[in-house]
């Protein structure tokens, strides 16, 4: 794989394909106007990119798609990067005064007469404003429409995820190389992000999950998955769970390693745990095929003899996280509704244990007609 070789994704084609798919879905769902505020959805629908910040921003309609004439309108805010294919006349200016933004949206052809408007999110005040702009409209949840479109990936999207996974793996190896007693969890995250930046990327996925595995904590609360400030001690098991964004697409990998593999006992512990992981993975692997449901994955996990962890075991990903499709708190009936198909990319994760020792693993997987393709390549074991 070469970042600058002929394999590089065609990002203009990628944006074009995504926008077309959203309009096709609007046709199917008979949605006249689609209003998107979630950053992942806005970026998917028209390539609108926003400066990444840690604190979720208040709702603002970032993208307005009108089915009639297939017109894409995007907010031109100070912290947005508008893709070149959206001409200035299809951009509306931002303002600190939301009613000025609402007025500009009201002038977009097709908005005032819309009968069916789909929203992915809103704030109470914006709900009032949009209701008064679209007086004839029924407002519906855009979630099902946009999720269904986003879940199945194009070749360009898969390329981006593959690249992100490769860089995440490089980061994980760098984090693993810094592992020794006396280090703090956050220093592992630091090594991970610094390695990521050497590939020209600047945005890691969240705070990472570089955490010591603490049996007592697992028993009471579940596995810790946000990097903290614990000091690593000789023989600790440590999760290395990191991801990066490449052109917005998430690639992530998770492994567990022993702090100081020279310690014979912890080396043996890891080997015993990874053989459990291989057992679990054998069960999951057979359920990662087109036509299987999230509930099949849930059952496969249970059939391995392990209890479901307190986090979802399969998450659909693309431009960040899309949906927990198996193992969430919403239960088996919810998981049953998610049907895998070719082109779906999942993060499949789990926790296995022997006595009071736990092992966390996460693989990024592409579902294909020929079977699952595991995009993550680092091995499990005493060393990566």
């Amino acid at each position, binding site marked *: 794989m070469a970042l600058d070789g002929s394999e590089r994704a065609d990002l203009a084609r990628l944006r074009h394909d995504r926008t077309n798919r959203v309009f096709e879905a609007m046709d199917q769902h008979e949605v006249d106007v689609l209003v998107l505020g979630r*950053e*992942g959805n806005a970026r998917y629908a028209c390539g609108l*990119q926003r*400066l*990444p*910040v*840690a*604190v*979720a*921003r*208040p*709702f603002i309609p970032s993208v307005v798609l009108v089915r009639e004439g297939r017109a894409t309108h995007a907010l*031109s805010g*100070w*912290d947005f*990067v508008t893709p070149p294919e959206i001409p*200035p006349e299809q951009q509306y*200016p*931002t303002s*600190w*005064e939301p009613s*000025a933004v609402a007025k500009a949206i009201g002038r977009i052809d097709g908005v005032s007469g819309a009968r069916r408007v*789909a*929203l992915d*999110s*809103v*704030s*109470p*005040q914006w*709900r009032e404003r949009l209701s008064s702009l679209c007086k004839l409209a029924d*407002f*519906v*949840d855009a*979630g099902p429409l946009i999720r269904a479109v986003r879940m199945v990936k194009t070749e360009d999207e898969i390329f981006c995820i593959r690249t992100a996974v490769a860089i995440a793996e490089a980061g994980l190896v760098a984090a693993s190389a810094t592992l020794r007693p006396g280090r*703090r969890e*956050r*220093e592992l*995250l*630091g*090594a991970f992000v610094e390695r990521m*930046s*050497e*590939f*020209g990327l*600047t945005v*890691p*996925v*969240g*705070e990472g999950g570089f955490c010591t595995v603490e049996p007592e*904590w697992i028993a*009471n609360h*579940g596995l810790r*998955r*946000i990097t903290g400030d614990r000091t690593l001690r000789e023989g600790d098991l440590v999760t290395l769970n990191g991801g990066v964004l490449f052109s917005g697409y998430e690639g992530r990998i998770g492994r567990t390693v022993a702090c100081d593999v020279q310690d014979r006992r912890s080396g043996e512990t890891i080997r015993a745990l990874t053989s459990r992981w291989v057992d679990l993975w054998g069960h999951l692997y057979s359920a990662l095929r087109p036509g299987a449901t999230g509930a099949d994955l849930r059952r496969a996990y249970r059939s391995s003899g392990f209890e479901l962890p307190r986090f979802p075991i399969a998450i659909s990903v693309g431009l*960040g*996280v899309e*949906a*927990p499709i198996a193992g969430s*708190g*919403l239960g088996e009936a919810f998981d049953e509704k998610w049907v895998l198909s070719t082109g779906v990319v999942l993060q499949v994760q789990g926790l296995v244990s022997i006595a009071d020792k736990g092992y966390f693993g996460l693989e990024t997987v592409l579902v294909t007609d020929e079977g699952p393709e595991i995009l993550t390549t680092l091995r499990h074991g005493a060393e990566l």
Partner: protein
Amino acid sequence: MSSWLPDPARMRHERTAKVRTEMIRAGVDALVLTSSGNVQYATGVTCVSSDPSHAVAEPTMVIITADELRIFASYPEGVPPEVPAALVSGPLLVEFPEGARELVGQLGDLLGGGVVRVGFDDLSGASLAALCSELPSMVLVDASLVLAPAKFVKSADEIGCIREAQARNEIAMSDVLASLRPGVRQSELTGRFLRRVFELGCVTNSVDPVWQVTPPSIRQGPPTLHGDVAFPIPSTDRVLRSDDLIIVDTGIVYEGYCSDFGRTWYPSGGFPSPRQRDHFQRWCDVVHRVLEITRPGTSGAEINQAARKGEPDRKPWFEHYYLVHGLGTQGSEMPFIGTDLGEAFEADIILEPGVVMVLEPVIWDDGHGGYRAEEVVAVTDSGYEMLGSFPYSPFYDAPIQW
């Protein structure tokens, strides 16, 4: 750095009480919060927040009433130690109708089905649909009605957290400045910064670090609808050249509180031109004029006028942005001064002890570049306190004694 350290548990306790007081004042019966800055402010719960897709898909939500608190956390390690375990449950996945129904069930259970006013900071499409059909008499209002006034004045503990965040941010930036040279990539600076921030014990980077190469004239930059300098532009693997003008903007989080760092740097290092010195001097003059009147009782409109006095040709800030914003559990909050919200809005902003302002004037001399930097200031009983102390290289190698 001060030797006095904030007491996070006391701070959390006082904030929650303040939120409840503001709820009574605003006539709001319950708050439903999911944005990390709001959740942190009202309850002290830390959420995964470094990217919005995870914040949405792995939400942490809190519901607060006059006498109850319920926490729905994807990551239980973010819940402060003093919160009883009985108040914490797994996440409400409100992006989906099934999860939105659970939210409706919780609200019905806490508030009954009558006429109640509930403040939300965000509504998923599914939540809106479920609330409208299941709890039609509930009045939905913006949570900012309660939170904006609560956050406006900070306690000594809160200001202590901002001071700490700013100090750690500045330590990391001095490392970055040492590695700034022609040929370095923007992404390399990001890597160095983030690594240092995490080594310094911060949990979250609050904004994708900006190292913006800014052409000397607006027409050479990316086109914008607002017609002003395009800023901020996300960083890439771009290589910085010797004569580039780099506008820098970074921020991190400590105990939930944000810092804000801004400077203008040149990869070539020393020897700024006379024109660059003039830009910098005028920028300092704007800050001086604002600080001269920074004390309790001064209005936002007066701050605006003071900044403009002496710069008749152009407002000395990015007009699409602002001259001043507040800083707290969000990187940008009230008070806003210099936005397009107008004079009446700013006349109503009255400084009080405990208000924290980020001053970010900009001198722009189209065709010849300009100067932008940021200073974080807390209003005190008698004036102000600077919360940062970073030098202004290459103009001064020591912090300015404002």
